[in-house]
């Protein structure tokens, strides 16, 4: 078993899917739609990085989708007030970080289970946003879309930003002590504490980082269309958890890397259009996502059992 067995198998599954598409639905391979797909998924990639970090730390954050919605609407409102991009960017990131800090304080400070805390904050932000905005879309001013660049340039910018961020974070996770601390706390918080790493600080920081990344992703999301959809974050948390888990990040923490999460996200992102091109009804998408999560987790569990028994 090579060290990166899990990530390699995801990459192989992705390759298989792409081959099937090349054979049965070659219409999938067109430059412009693929570019648009990649740009649409760029914000999700950024959030997936944050989610992967939280999962590696043996926590979970299902409120990232609602955070994205709130930050998107906030960024849109600031843009419609003609604030410069140089202020909206840090504003959105700080707002996301603030949400993350709240989650982190409750989980790290009070020791509450992250699933329940983030379920509660997810509902609170979502309902609060709906109450304040009543589902109204935010109109962006002229020139706000694609940051004022052409569509293609804007799309490549977003993709570039997402991939650069991914590479930087992956490097940090591997080579920076802070990155290794996340793995340590996720593997065994008590051992990490005895080794001098403060698990509470690391957990708090991870939630803040996930929130900040979500704030950035919200801005990337806002830049793609002339209006802001207040429901843009719906279902995002499930998608990013699926991407991370499929990509080899263990839900029990301590294992996985961001490149695997990237492969997982690409795989999941291709499922939707693949279904369309293979002429399967779009309504099977959610069921497929759930099935993919379960398949990935079952495969892990099966391997674990076989290793244990042998």
């Amino acid at each position, binding site marked *: 078993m090579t060290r990166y067995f899990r990530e390699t198998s995801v990459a192989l599954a992705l390759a298989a899917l792409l081959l099937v598409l090349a054979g049965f639905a070659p219409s999938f391979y067109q430059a412009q739609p693929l570019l648009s797909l990649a740009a649409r998924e760029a914000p999700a990639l950024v959030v997936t990085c944050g989610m992967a970090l939280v999962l590696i730390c043996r926590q979970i954050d299902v409120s990232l989708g609602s955070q994205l919605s709130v930050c998107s609407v906030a960024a849109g409102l600031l843009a419609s007030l003609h604030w410069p991009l140089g202020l909206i960017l840090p504003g959105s990131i700080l707002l996301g970080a603030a949400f993350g800090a709240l989650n982190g304080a409750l989980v790290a400070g009070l020791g509450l289970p992250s699933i329940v805390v983030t379920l509660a904050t997810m509902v609170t932000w979502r309902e609060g946003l709906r109450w304040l905005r009543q589902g109204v879309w935010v109109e962006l001013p002229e020139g706000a879309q694609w940051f004022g660049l052409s569509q293609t340039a804007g799309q490549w910018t977003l993709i570039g930003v997402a991939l650069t961020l991914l590479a930087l974070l992956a490097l940090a996770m591997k080579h920076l002590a802070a990155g290794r601390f996340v793995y340590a706390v996720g593997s065994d918080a008590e051992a990490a504490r005895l080794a001098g790493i403060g698990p509470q600080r690391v957990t708090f920081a991870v939630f803040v980082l996930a929130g900040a990344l979500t704030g950035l992703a919200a801005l990337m999301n806002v830049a793609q269309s002339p209006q802001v959809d207040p429901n843009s974050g719906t279902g995002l948390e499930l998608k990013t958890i699926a991407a991370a888990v499929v990509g080899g990040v263990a839900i029990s923490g301590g294992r996985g890397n961001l490149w695997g999460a990237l492969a997982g996200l690409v795989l999941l992102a291709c499922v939707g259009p693949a279904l369309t091109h293979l002429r399967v009804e779009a309504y099977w998408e959610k*069921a497929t996502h759930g099935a993919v999560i379960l398949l990935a*987790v079952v495969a892990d569990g099966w391997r674990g059992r076989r290793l244990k028994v042998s």
Partner: protein
Amino acid sequence: MKSPLKSILLRHETVLLLILTAEWWFFSAAGRNFGTLDNTFDIIRHSVEIGLLALAMTAVVLTGGIDLSVGSLLGLCAVLLGMFWRDAHLTMRVAAVLTLLAGALAGGFNAALITWLRLPPLIVTLGTFSLFRGLAEALTHGVDTFTGFPEAFLFLGQERWLGLPAQLPIFLLFAAGIWLLIHRTTFGRSFRALGFSAEGARYAGIPVERRLAMVYVLAGLTAALAAIVYTARLGQAKADAGTGYELLAITAVVLGGTSIFGGSGSVAGTLLGVAAIAVLNNGLVHTRQPREVAGMLTGLLLLAALSGSVLLKRLATVRQRWQSPPEATERTSS
């Protein structure tokens, strides 16, 4: 030595009862039509489905697990009920029994992954949360709705029997059964042992995997039962039935004093938690608050309940340190 009266007063359930009473008074004064019998029956009708889910969730949480898929399973079972009745032309009774079976099977699917493959309940039920809802949407092509159920069936959800809402006897019977199971049978009492320490339970001779499996099968069965009551009450079955119900069930369970980490809790607490949430939701409607406020308050209520119990425990630890002599055993990090 605490006096017995003080022990009763400081119990979690008593506090909840006081909160419930306060809610009732507040909304009776602030809202119109709140304290009427009709409205009370309305509250009961709405809370039966959540109550059923919360009761099953109590058993699951007691074992230290969680089941996020119950809401989606309710939706899937509602759709299946509609399909059995309308498309397969079965009688309502047969359709209902088949739906219950389907729910148990779905619960069994969760159980198999959790006990046989030793996967964390969180990720398994997160996956089935998506899968079940997705299946419901796919089966109905996203838009199909099942209506036109027979009168006799709708009686269950909408009419009164012996002067009380017809679904209430079902709920009371179920609640009594769950209470007996969890608090009086050795089978059910083992749930708390599992939640407290699975390995310890194993050494005590409890068949850990089998008990865990039963808990999740029970949750699936309950979701199916809730789906039947839901469909009878609304008169229609759609794929989005039960959306968000898992959160309400978890909130009720945690409000009721069951520890989210497993090992301690009570059915009475859960019932009070369900009542508190139902009264809150209904009261907010009657004081003309928008639906979103109810949603926000539920989330905040859950956070408050969780934080409250942890903070109280920490306070108790601090008090203990103050009161006991210095050479008392040093407590490790809690």
